[in-house]
Every structure is written in C-alpha cells, then in structure tokens.
C-alpha cells in the first residue's frame, strides 16, 4: 500500500501533448477515479503510473520516493485492462500465479487459491481464458492483479466490456475487494456513473489537464469549470450563452447553467412549448422550445404530464443557477435568474 503523488506530471509526444501539469495526491488506501472523455490523457496517466510510459516532465512519487525511471516490474503495481489481457496460452491458475513467478514463495499457490476464492472463480482454475465468459475473465484479471499485494491497483476501463447487469455486480464486487484489502486504487473510466459510484474522489480530466478534483457531489453541484458542468450529469446541464436579454446576471458571466431537475413548471415564468419527452423510469425528461433555445427539465413520475405541443411556463430557484466566466471558470457565490421580462 502506498501514498501516490504526481507533481507537475507531463507527457508529450512529438506532435502533441497528452498530459500536462498534472498535480495529484492519493492517500494510502484511497480509491480514486480518473474520469474524462476518450483522448483526455487518462490512460496515458495510468500507463505512466504503471511504468510503461516515461514521463517527459514532472515526477511520480510512491510514498515520497521518486519512481519515474523505475521499471514496471519493480513498481509492484497490479493492473486490469479493459480487454482483461489474460495470457491465452496459460490456464487460469497459471495466469494468477504469473506475477509471483520471481518471488518463489512456497505458499504462492495457496495464495492464488485464496485470491480465486475471493473473486469467486475457484471452480475454474484449470480452464483456459478462451473458455471463460467476460465476467469470469474479469475476475481472473483482478485476482492476477492482486496476488502480489500491489502498492497500487490500476483499473483501465475494467467494466466497459461487460453487460449492464454484470457491470452493476462487478462495481460492488470490486469496491468490496479493494476496501477489504485496503489497496490504493486508481480507476480510469469515461463512465461518470462508474466513477461516482465507486470512487472516494473523482479526478475529472480534459485535453490533458485536470479540470477538477473532488467528491462526486462536489463535481455535480459545484463544477469548477464549464467542461465539468457539461460532462458530469445525465441528462446534461442546460447551458445558455450570455449575455442574453432575458437573463439578469453579473456582467462578467458568459455562460449560464441550470441542471434539468432545477427547472420546474410553474404558473408564470419562461414560456415554453413541449417538443419531445422521454420517460426514464421514475422520471420523465421533457425537451421544450423557449426563447432561450431548447431546454430540458426532469419531473418525477412514470407517465409524461405533457403532450408534444403543450405550452407551459418554467421557473427555477435563483441559487440553482451556475455561472461561468469567459475562461470557463465558475464564478463563485454568483446567482442569477431569468428576468421579470421573461415572466411576461
């Protein structure tokens, strides 16, 4: 187990910069998710942590020691890939035992069986990877990553190849195992639900930079940047470019954001016309045409309350509005409201 620190970490290719000025401290035993769209540099970061890519700037520290040039095999990290990357020419047991090869511990096989039990594949030890289902392969990969008691467990989109039900099970399973073992874990994912449900803290990345670090609700309720506001939340936040005559705001604000659940139908307010609705289980997402453009709002209920073409009015609480300046940074403590004029 280890405390991980990234200091001004940078990775540049000949023609592009994949990661720049990345600063992050991960506590011993913490579960951190790196979340971002594809190509944002999250996998590059992961491969640098594993020791497979060499940083072009900055430092990686394990428990305060600089490990930039330490090779992957000496870092004692475990890794699970999206494709699971099991060795097809070895049995499940051989796969799990592979990382212990150099240590020659007599109880390696006993420990492998314990690991197999923990991830519930002890019936499959003699099989070949090709004879396993996706979920089973995933468990083998996890057991293999954990057998050498790694300082750091790296998970690279580990659930993307599983179907929805299995994903739910494995989310809980992985969380339970990492908590039991107390292993420091970094999860790389583009799926915000995965990040927010599993991680203690979420690091949101875009275009090679960290946009925000925080707990899931921080990212949702108080996004530091316009990117985080747009990326986190499903359905996404309504974003309106400013200035706009119908919205009364501080003059530095350039974007006005409002979560779909913050908008609600009212007697008076912004006039709107329903163009589309999507029942989403216990909620209904309704899209409306307004003088501010298309907006979306969420209402509780299993049945749509409106029909396409219905006219209604929308309002919101002044505090729910989130404002961003011209650089995309959030303006703290600012409030805004669609103006009186809009209530006409």
């Amino acid at each position: 187990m280890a405390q991980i620190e990234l200091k001004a970490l940078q990775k540049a290719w000949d023609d592009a910069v994949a990661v720049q000025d990345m600063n992050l401290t991960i506590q011993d035993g913490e579960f951190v998710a790196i979340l971002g769209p594809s190509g944002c540099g999250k996998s590059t970061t992961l491969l640098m942590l594993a020791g497979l890519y060499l940083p072009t700037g900055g430092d990686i520290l394990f428990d305060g020691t600089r490990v930039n040039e330490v090779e992957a095999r000496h870092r004692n990290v475990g890794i699970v890939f999206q494709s699971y990357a099991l060795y097809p020419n070895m049995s499940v047991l051989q796969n799990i035992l592979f990382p212990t090869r150099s240590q020659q511990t007599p109880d390696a096989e006993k420990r492998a069986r314990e690991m197999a039990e923990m991830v519930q594949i002890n019936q499959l030890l003699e099989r070949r990877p090709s004879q396993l289902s996706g979920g089973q392969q995933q468990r083998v990969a996890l057991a293999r990553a954990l057998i050498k008691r790694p300082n750091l467990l790296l998970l690279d989109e580990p659930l993307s190849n599983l179907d929805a039900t299995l994903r739910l099970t494995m989310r809980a399973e992985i969380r339970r195992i990492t908590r039991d073992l107390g292993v420091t874990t970094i999860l790389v994912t583009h799926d915000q639900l995965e990040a927010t449900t599993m991680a203690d803290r979420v690091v949101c990345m875009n275009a090679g930079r960290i946009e925000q670090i925080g707990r899931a609700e921080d990212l949702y309720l108080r996004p530091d940047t316009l990117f985080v506001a747009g990326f986190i939340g499903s359905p996404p936040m309504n974003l309106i470019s400013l200035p706009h005559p119908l919205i009364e705001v501080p003059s530095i604000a350039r974007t006005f954001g409002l979560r779909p659940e913050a908008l609600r139908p009212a007697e008076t307010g912004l006039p709107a016309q329903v163009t589309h609705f999507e029942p989403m289980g216990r909620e209904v997402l309704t899209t409306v045409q307004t003088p501010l453009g298309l907006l979306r709002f969420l209402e509780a209920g299993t049945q749509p309350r409106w029909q396409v073409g219905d006219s209604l009015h929308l309002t919101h609480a002044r505090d729910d509005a989130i404002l961003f300046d011209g650089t995309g940074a959030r303006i703290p403590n600012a409030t805004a409201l669609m103006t009186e004029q809009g209530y006409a």
Partner: protein
Amino acid sequence: MKATRQRFDAFLFLGPAVVLMLAFFVAPIVVNILVAFSDMNQTVRFEEFPTTKQFNKLGKLDPEAFWGIELRGSFYRALALTASFVLLTLIIFNVSFALILALTTTAVPERMGAVFRAIWLLPRMSPSVVYALLWLWVVDSAERGLLNQVWLLFASEPLNLRLDHPMAVIVVANGLIGASLGMIIFTSAIRSIPEHLFNAARVDGAGPLSIVRHVILPALRWPISYITIYQALALLVSFEYIFLIMGPARSTMTMAMLSYTKTLAPGIGGGQYAYGASIALILIVVGIAVALLMWRLINMKSLLQRPRIEVN
C-alpha cells in the same frame, strides 16, 4: 546503462536480419550495378570499368530511331517476347482465371471448394523440376505424350507444342501456377466481406451475378490491383519454368532467360557476367519502380504504427 541495453537489444533482435540482408540482398544490387558497367566474363575480374559496352550490345543511340535508341535484334526480340509472355499470362491466368477460381470455389459448399483449391495449389507446392518434368511428358511430341493420346482420338497428326506453339506452352505452364496465388488472395478477401452485406443484397433481390458485381468485385479492388502489379513483376523476371521446360530455345528467350542463359544456366551458361548483369539491371530498375508503385497499395499508417511500450 539503459542505452547500452537498448543498443544490445537492437543488436540481438535486428542484427542477424540486417547482416544477412545486407550481405546477400543489398550488396548484390550494388554489385550488379557495378558489374553491368564492366566487361566481366569467365575470369570474374572487373575489366574496363567503367564502360557502357554491355548496353551497346543491347542497343545503340540513334537520333533517328523511335525514343532515340535502336535496339539490337536479339534484345528487341527478347523485349517483345517478354512483353507478350507477361501480358498473356497475367491477363488470362494470374488475374482473370484466378478471379474465376476464387468466385467459383467460394460459391460451392466450403469443403468442396477447399478440395479444388488444394488441387490448384498442387503445382505451386511441388518442386519446379517435378512440375517441369510433368509438362515435358504431357506435351511430348511423340504419340506417347499425354496430350497427344487425347489429341489423336480426334486428329491424325500428333502435336508438337514445344516447337510449334512455344509461347502457349510457357504461358499456360506459368499461368497454372500463377493463378493459384491470386485465387488464395481473392478467396480470403471474399471471405472477409461481412456476411450481412450478402444478406442485405439477397434481401434486396440481387441474384448471384449481381452479388458478384455489386458486393464482391468492389471489395476486391485492392487485392486485384495488388496481384496485378505483384504478378506482373514476378512474371517479368521469371525464367525458372521457361528454362526447365523449354531449355535455351530461341523461341522463348525472354529478357530474364537471356540474362540467365548467357551466364549461369547449367551446361550452356556462357559466363558473360557483365552482359547478363546489364540485362538484369534493366529488370532491377523496373523492379524498384514497381516496388515503389506498390507503396500506394500498402496501408502505411498501420505499418508504421507507433509502439506503445516505451521502456525496454
């Protein structure tokens, strides 16, 4: 220390290949160019270097002539024979017939198609001397020749193909081998067409022929260009089967044959190394040009894809 190991790795992995190719592939190209401009013969010594003597044997500059060069009779003949040999074999067998074989063997049940493809690969897999031997027996001018045994059922005079239709003999002999390469490449290209495309075409009312025309042929565009260029080059320089079947007959003395028989051919090889090398040089220049042309058919991006592990 790290750099040392990197260098050692490169040496270990690439070294043997580089050394072998430099010694017996790249060096011969250079040597061939040098020899072509000398007057090397039996003595195997560089004499009169540099000289264009050898090329003067092929043709001489003549402002009156078409393209400014007047070719010597024997070389002109070789050029014409090469052109008709390459074109006929390529068009009839290596592309068209290969395509027909690929289409028909993929249209019948899988196992049956595989059997016919295996039969067509037989000539390619059997040693060239054996294949040539079979040809000699089949086209034997006496009545015992296999072809004549069938022919004499309908005619009274036996055929002497090697004497009367030498071009036909070498075209068919090379073509039966050449067709199998195209057949294999086209077959695997047809296989890799997604099944749903065929299904969609069938649902849309396409018959077998319009499936061939609208689904299969478009998918074979790259393989066909590749085979055409690759085989044109292979035929241009090939002399092994011609020599083994026809011997040094003048009727089939293509450029590659001329180069070979003037130097190394067993029994008759004259050891005129410089002369042979000068003809080979022409073929080499054409070869490099065509090889460069083939770059266009290669997916450079995937070929040059950057490695993804940075530590060694």
